[in-house]
């Protein structure tokens, strides 16, 4: 079950999106995230949905695989929808006991839910098409100006890439420990929140111990391979913008401009909801 979480994984296929410069994808994701918060009507969502569908198509990552990533946020999603649905004041549509659903509540529940979904889909699409190494290379290069004010940009980037590499390993380990504890009668599924939280202790302690051991081993292995920080390091895959990256930026800017235009004029169009 725990291995179903697909967020942050890389999906190795050969597509245009996979070949783009990671900086384009990082900037694009940022633009995309901003864009989904710019409008309040369904016209905007049409644009966003079309954009997202087209890049999903371009990425060649199976749609089912991408949607699987939503499993991880289902609770947050339900919470968001629930609170927006029942706790927004406005014109009441339905009332069951003390639970009131207002028109505005329905509206914002739907919108927040969709925004969350788009947020996850958009950002996970970035990680599906970008190897963590490229991602951190991109981040390192984008954030490089910060190193002039003594921000350890290279170190942060390296930490991130290692964290990403160890996500699947630690997940697998969690699974293994869980099964081992279950075989000895541990119960992770029943009882109240407090009992369940307590039940996690025999899971977390060995997990932390092994994570520290791994960290220690890894640090040693890195030093043995002459790692000594970012100074004097060369890159196997240095970043250079190519023609297609320029095209991608144009595509992104057109999309962003479209969303801005929609957000300006949406109130003049007939309401869809």
């Amino acid at each position: 079950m725990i291995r179903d979480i697909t967020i942050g994984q890389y999906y190795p296929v050969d597509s245009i999106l996979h070949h783009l410069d990671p900086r384009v994808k990082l900037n694009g994701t940022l633009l995309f995230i901003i864009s989904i918060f710019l409008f309040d009507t369904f016209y905007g969502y049409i644009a966003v949905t079309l954009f997202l569908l087209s890049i999903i198509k371009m990425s060649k990552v199976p749609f089912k695989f991408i949607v699987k990533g939503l499993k991880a946020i289902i609770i947050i999603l339900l919470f968001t929808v629930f609170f927006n649905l029942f706790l927004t004041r406005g014109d009441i549509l339905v009332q069951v006991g003390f639970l009131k659903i207002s028109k505005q509540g329905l509206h914002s529940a739907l919108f927040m839910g969709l925004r969350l979904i788009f947020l996850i889909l958009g950002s996970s699409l970035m990680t599906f098409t970008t190897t963590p190494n490229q991602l951190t290379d991109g981040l390192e290069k984008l954030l490089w100006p910060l190193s002039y004010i003594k921000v350890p940009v290279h170190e942060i980037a390296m930490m991130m890439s290692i964290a990403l590499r160890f996500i699947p390993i630690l997940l697998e380990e969690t699974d293994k420990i869980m099964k081992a504890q279950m075989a000895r009668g541990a119960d992770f599924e029943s009882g109240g929140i407090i009992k369940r939280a307590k039940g996690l202790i025999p899971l977390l302690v060995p997990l932390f111990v092994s994570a520290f051991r791994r960290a220690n081993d890894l640090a040693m292995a890195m030093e043995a391979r002459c790692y000594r920080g970012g100074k004097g390091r060369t890159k196997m895959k240095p970043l250079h913008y190519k023609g297609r990256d320029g095209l991608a930026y144009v595509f992104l800017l057109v999309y962003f401009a479209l969303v801005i235009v929609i957000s300006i004029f949406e109130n003049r169009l007939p309401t869809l909801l």
Partner: protein
Amino acid sequence: MDMVKIKDLAFEYIRRDEEGNVESINRAIDGVNLDVKKGDFIAVLGANGSGKSTLAKHINAILYPTEGTVWVSGLKTSDEENIWEIRESAGMVFQNPDNQIIATVVEEDVGFGPENLGVPTEEIWQRVEDSLRAVDMLEYRSHSPNKLSGGQKQRIAIAGIMAMKPQCIVLDEPTAMLDPDGRKDVISTVHKLNQQDNITVILITHHMDEVIDADKVFVMEKGQVVMEGTPREIFSKVDELKRYRLDVPQVTELAYELRKKGLDIPEGILSVEELVQALDKIRG
């Protein structure tokens, strides 16, 4: 010149309590002398806690001697300014394949070492390709290491070291976490590198069958080298090996027992073929 020279090496793990007072001293290595010639295939055998891994870490300048000296390609490991040069010339492969792979794509991991050395980009690609080919993993270059078997991961780790163009590879129990097939692959890869590229190999292990083809074997116990010689010399002393909590290969043990029972079999049989030959001779 010796590739690795170790003289009167001693190393102590010192445990301290919270105030920094010494709680206990564990002398993990106690007076080891060892010479490794260039191009040699050396095996260091020992049961758990015999100090063999600690010894390996000295050759890569991960640990520094408490007493004595270690030279790698003529460089003293205790000099701070030498450590990067030493690590470049003596690469190290560790036990756990997962904990030494840094990148999420095979070729990027192999490129990690050369990147750290400041090798120009085109040459990194060349080295990555060469070393992946050397360990027979070129077809997996764009795979994720998570999907590979233990033996394959370990070969990737070896390729990662090879890409740094070392003169010597130290392997610290590289097969301890592998299945028999993976073990065979790793060991034959190491032999190939030793023979084709003339890489000096120092193999730390407790699997006896992996040391049969080594040029020289050292047996460690309680931080000291207690036996040294060719595999044949070592394996002819079955009783002594057992005293150091080491098993001998099955054939060797069978031959030894037969010999003890009075059959005319030479000492230190290492392979099934040898035993068959010896038995044929007796039958006439």
